[in-house]
C-alpha cells in the first residue's frame, strides 16, 4: 500500500480513511495486539485520531490519512467496515470496488495495481468493463467535521453542513 502510494502519488490521489476499529480490545472480536496497544472502541474523535496516529507512526506510513466522523458516515456510505479498497475515476465512477474485509483486500490491491500500471503506461484511464454498473445516483455523504481536541489550529474547526463556507 505504501509502496503503491510512493510509485503513483504523482498521478493519482491516495487517501486512507480511518474508520472504527475492526478488533478493538473491548469488542467481541478483540485480538491480542489490540489489547497490547490499548486500542479500544473509539468513544470520541480524539480517540479515533490517536489510534490513527499510532498506525501512521508504527507502520512508518506517509499516505495521507482522513478520519471518519463519529457517526461513521463515510464508512456507512461505502459499507467499508472492516476494511475495503476503492478506486475512483476522474469522472467519479468506481473503477475498482473491492469486496469488504480481508478476503477482498488483497485481490483488490492487485486490481488497483494493474489499473495504475495501465494508466501510467497509456496516459489515460482504462475503460470500464462492459458489465460495469450504470453510474446511478450521485450521492453526497453528510459528515460532521470535528476538530481534534488536542489541536491548536483554529482553522480545523469546521462543519461540513455549510458553516465553514
Amino acid at each position, binding site marked *: 500500500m505504501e509502496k503503491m502510494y510512493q510509485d503513483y502519488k504523482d498521478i*493519482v490521489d491516495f487517501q486512507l480513511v480511518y474508520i472504527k476499529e475492526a478488533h478493538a480490545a473491548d469488542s467481541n472480536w478483540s485480538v491480542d495486539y489490540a489489547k497490547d496497544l490499548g486500542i479500544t472502541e473509539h468513544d470520541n474523535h480524539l480517540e479515533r485520531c490517536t489510534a490513527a496516529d499510532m498506525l501512521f507512526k508504527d507502520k512508518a506510513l506517509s499516505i495521507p490519512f482522513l478520519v471518519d466522523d463519529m457517526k461513521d458516515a463515510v464508512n456507512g456510505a461505502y459499507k467499508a467496515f472492516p*476494511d475495503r479498497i476503492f478506486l475512483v475515476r476522474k469522472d467519479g465512477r468506481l473503477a475498482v470496488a473491492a469486496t469488504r474485509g480481508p*478476503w477482498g483486500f488483497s485481490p483488490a490491491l492487485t486490481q488497483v495495481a494493474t489499473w495504475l500500471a495501465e494508466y501510467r503506461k497509456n496516459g489515460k484511464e482504462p475503460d470500464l468493463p462492459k458489465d460495469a*454498473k450504470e*453510474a446511478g445516483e450521485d450521492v453526497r455523504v453528510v459528515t460532521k467535521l470535528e476538530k481534534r481536541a488536542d*489541536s491548536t489550529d483554529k482553522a480545523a474547526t469546521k462543519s461540513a453542513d455549510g458553516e465553514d463556507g
Partner: protein
Amino acid sequence: MKLKHVFSAGILLAFLGSAILAQQGQQGNRQGRGRGGQRQNRMEHRPGDLRIGQMAPTFELSSLDGKSKYDLLKMRGEKPVVLFFGSYT
C-alpha cells in the same frame, strides 16, 4: 424366501438414500454451505454494496492532524483517487 426379499429391499433403500444425501451435499457446497463455500461467499458482493461503474459517494473529512479538510468532490476531473478504508486492528 420372504426374508431374502425384505433384506434386498433394505439394501436398495440404503443405496438410494446414500445417493440422495451425496447429491444434496454437492448442491450444498455449490451454494456455499460447505466450509469452502463460506469462504467463497465472503468474497462476493452483498446487496447494496457499491459496484464498479457506480458513482462514488462524495464526502468531506478532516485530515489526521485536523488542520485541513479533504473533499472528494473536488477531485472530479483532476485525478483518480484510491481510497483505503481500515483501522489499526
